[in-house]
């Protein structure tokens, strides 16, 4: 079969351009999330997720089986359009707050978050009182001149060194 209208060079050029343009969308199944954005977002989430089998490592640092699998799942969820918080919630729902390297602030963790500040507060108060008293004592004692006898004794001791 032969085409009745032979496309001009310009027309075929435009066709090719248009096809290339659309093919991008076909390859990249999720047009909203580029490969790069996916990578940076997933990396950010990985850093905050505890590797459950290696305890104090994030899944980003770990190559344990479960960590690898969680990474795959996180990427999957990102591709499905989950927000970062929704992904964290997804994991917390299954594994509890323990899976987050940074524990969230709630009633059971309040002591953890607040205690350092309380301790700092008391330390500052006691510190200022201590320093204040010390300097007050020093002022009082510095006014005290040596007694005559003490003066004599001191010059005697110093005299021994000459």
């Amino acid at each position: 079969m032969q085409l009745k209208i032979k496309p001009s060079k310009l027309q075929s050029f435009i066709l090719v351009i248009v096809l290339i343009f659309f093919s991008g969308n076909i390859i990249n199944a999720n047009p909203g999330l580029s490969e790069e954005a996916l990578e940076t977002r997933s990396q950010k989430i990985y850093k905050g997720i505890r590797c459950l089998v290696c305890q104090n490592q994030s899944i980003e640092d770990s190559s344990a089986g479960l960590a690898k699998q969680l990474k795959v799942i996180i990427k999957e969820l990102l591709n499905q359009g989950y927000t970062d918080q929704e992904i964290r919630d997804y994991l917390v729902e299954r594994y509890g707050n323990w899976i987050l390297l940074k524990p969230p602030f709630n009633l059971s963790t309040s002591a953890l978050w607040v205690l350092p500040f309380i301790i700092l507060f008391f330390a500052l108060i006691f510190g200022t009182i201590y320093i204040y008293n010390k300097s007050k004592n020093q002022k009082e004692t510095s006014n005290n001149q040596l007694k005559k006898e003490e003066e004599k004794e001191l010059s005697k001791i110093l005299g021994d060194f000459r």
Partner: protein
Amino acid sequence: MKKNLLFIIPILIFTLVSIFLAIGLFLKPKEIPSALIGKRIPTFELPKISKELNGLSEKDLISGKPVLVNIFASWCGPCRIEHPLFMELAKNQEITILAINHKDNPNNAIRWLNMYGNPYKKIGSDLNGRVSIDFGVYGVPETFVIDGNGCIQYKHISVLTKEILNKEILPRLNGKKHVKCN
């Protein structure tokens, strides 16, 4: 008197710290409390490992009476240690033991069960471990108690012992210490 009080403060702090450290000594950080207790089981459908054995889906877990779900694998050493306990439990017709075969080659699982016996009524093959993740599993073996309505009651991590079985699992299979799901 004031001097004495000052001496007491460090001793007090020391005692407090020691108490916390002593408590810390007896914690088991490896055993993460399950976030899923008091929650409903996830929906899932796992294929069978062989023609003769059934697969496992969430419907099998909602049978009207409490069931045990054991996560096991043929490659898992500790699973072999707890296996005789399940074999003994299986003699009791009242108790339903189900299993999820975790990231295991079905052929190996079948060979393993032929060698050591099969205490499980139904086994689902979780090849990629995805269903296990929905169950909050992070290592094998793990054992769940699920009530008749699909509400997760208890989870034991690592090898099941007779002590845990008698103290925690059997009472829950009999409907005691029940946790409600909302």
